[in-house]
């Protein structure tokens, strides 16, 4: 394996700045890796589109600026030339954006998302677009219209979802950085089951302009990386106010890199860590609980004050989420009607009216899970049921926020397992939607309240990664990076390296790719 792809983004950026490696070499190393492990019979299939030509051109431009030196080289972003992969829910000019749906097959966005504009300005070469559950609806990436993604730790298991492609790309060393989106856990749960780091920022902390909307009051774009420090750099790069997103917070991005560097000392003296009573025990695998308890011990030994907090209304969060999210989905996805963009399918018989064209288009363009959620949302919003369903769910949202407020009186950060289980086998839950929904039980409360969350690797259970989640109050993302970096340091000292170093070697031989 080429050593270049093993570096963290921060390490790679330093080598690029020092002139030890060129950006072209870095991009090429990752493109070679993608060719080797992504496309074969049992390939990872993290990518729906590989953007090699443009990525190499951007890399060459960065190399030329660095070689010339002077003010232009000085002005480069510290991560200029470090490649990145983009979840295919985020729109990009010059590359197709599909949301992993047949509805948008071949669709070329006429504009860039704000996060993409920032990535272009910082000159990070984009390696391509990563796979996801269709329109980000799912917890396993098995609901993609373009085939599943495999977990690099075990090719017969799910990489999580909806952002399984971004998490798997980073875990398989196909990219050092990726972007994800998180509506109910779509960054954090894939991070947990692939042994990587993922952050859902405070709602409004990163512009959503150009993220194809699933549930607008819950969606958030965030970083997907292998280290906490890398996430901090990427979060600072993509964060900040955007006039094009009226829900974006009009305030500066917190000092996240500084917080991660502070945490990397491993010292947690004086930090109050609240264990959420309701997010453990029944439903959580024994191996997950063991790794979680070990993490608590490590934090306690490093000076943290461990307290128990109770969030009694979290048990209603999943139910409320599966009313609010589908309600917003049914509205947001109404625009896919076969008129202005995307697929148009004509009915096979009968009169050719716009209404019947819409019905045929949406029947053919959407997959089962998307249809299920649209119907559920239409139901929750319909006359006679609105108060009982949508209205009640909004009240539960208030109760969850109050639970968080009370918990943060007692603790600076909260902690829980990110996912109740390790990665499950491909196909084992696709026939049972409710069982699939339960995967997000620990991640959903954060989206309901808008608070930020991070997942960091917590060790292995039966050879598969376990994720540890920290949650912080709204606008206090920096606390996540402090605590996350500290736990990362404490556990890596114990393991003698990154958790991902324990992942099985992937090669063309194991995946059926190009050697």
């Amino acid at each position, binding site marked *: 394996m080429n050593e270049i792809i093993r570096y963290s983004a921060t390490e790679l950026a330093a080598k690029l700045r020092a002139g030890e490696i060129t950006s072209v070499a870095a991009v090429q190393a990752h493109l070679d890796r993608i060719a080797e492990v992504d496309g074969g019979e049992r390939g990872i299939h993290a990518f729906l589109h590989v953007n090699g030509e443009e990525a190499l051109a951007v890399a060459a431009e960065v190399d030329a600026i660095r070689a010339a030196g002077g003010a232009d080289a000085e002005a480069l972003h510290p991560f200029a030339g470090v490649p990145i992969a983009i979840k295919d829910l985020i729109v990009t000019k010059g590359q197709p954006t599909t949301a992993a749906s047949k509805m948008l097959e071949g669709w070329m966005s006429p504009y860039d998302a704000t996060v993409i504009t920032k990535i272009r300005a910082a000159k990070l070469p984009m390696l391509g677009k990563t796979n996801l559950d269709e329109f980000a609806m799912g917890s396993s990436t098995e609901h993609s219209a373009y085939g599943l993604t495999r977990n690099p730790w075990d090719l017969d298991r799910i990489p999580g979802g909806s952002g399984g492609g971004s998490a798997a790309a980073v875990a398989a060393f196909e990219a050092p950085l990726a972007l994800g989106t998180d509506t109910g856990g779509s960054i954090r749960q894939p991070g947990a089951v692939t042994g990587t780091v993922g952050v859902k920022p405070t709602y409004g902390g990163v512009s959503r302009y150009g993220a194809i909307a699933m549930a607008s009051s819950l969606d958030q774009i965030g970083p997907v990386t292998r280290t906490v420090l890398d996430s901090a750099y990427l979060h600072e790069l993509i964060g900040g106010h955007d006039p094009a997103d009226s*829900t974006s917070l009009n305030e500066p991005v917190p000092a996240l890199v500084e917080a991660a560097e502070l945490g990397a000392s491993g010292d947690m003296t004086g930090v109050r860590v609240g264990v959420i009573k309701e997010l453990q025990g029944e439903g959580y695998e024994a191996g997950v609980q063991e790794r979680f308890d070990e993490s608590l011990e490590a934090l306690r030994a490093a000076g943290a004050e461990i307290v128990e907090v109770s969030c009694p209304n979290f048990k209603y969060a*999943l139910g409320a989420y599966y009313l609010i999210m589908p309600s917003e989905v049914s509205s947001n996805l109404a625009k896919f009607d076969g008129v202005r963009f995307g*697929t148009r399918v004509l009915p096979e018989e009968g009169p050719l009216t*716009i209404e019947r064209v819409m019905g045929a288009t949406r029947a053919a363009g959407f997959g089962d899970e998307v249809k299920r959620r649209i119907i559920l949302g239409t139901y929750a919003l319909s006359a006679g049921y609105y108060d009982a*369903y949508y209205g009640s*769910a909004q*009240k539960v949202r*208030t109760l969850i926020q109050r639970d968080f407020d009370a918990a943060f009186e007692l603790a600076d950060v909260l902690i829980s397992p990110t996912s109740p289980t390790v990665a499950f086998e491909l196909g084992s839950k696709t026939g049972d939607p409710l069982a699939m929904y339960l995967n997000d039980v620990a991640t959903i409360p954060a989206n309901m309240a808008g608070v930020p969350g991070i997942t960091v690797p917590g060790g292995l259970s039966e050879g598969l990664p376990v994720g540890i989640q920290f949650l912080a109050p709204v606008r206090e993302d920096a606390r996540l990076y402090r605590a996350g970096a500290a736990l990362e340091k404490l556990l890596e000292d114990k393991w003698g390296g990154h958790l991902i170093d324990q992942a099985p070697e992937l090669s063309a031989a194991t995946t059926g790719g190009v050697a």
Partner: protein
Amino acid sequence: MSAISREDVAHLAHLAHIEMSDAELDKMTGELGVIVEAIASVSEVASADVPATTHPIALFNVFREDVVGPTLTAEEALLNAPDSVDTRFRVPAILDGE
């Protein structure tokens, strides 16, 4: 709360403009029944004195100067249209019949 019937699902699919076969309606009715039962617990705690939250962080109206910013050209806007004519989207008949 009442259970969701096959007729309900057929009506909802019509409202949502999604054509569904008989087999799909049967499957969807069964799945939605299980899901609706599981999420019905929200009404247990949602008492009248709890205010509703529509948005995670309190929102205020956001204004901007009334000036034209960057917009798509007609050509760009039509780039992905399934059908267009001149500078317009072309759609099938709005009304059935004559």
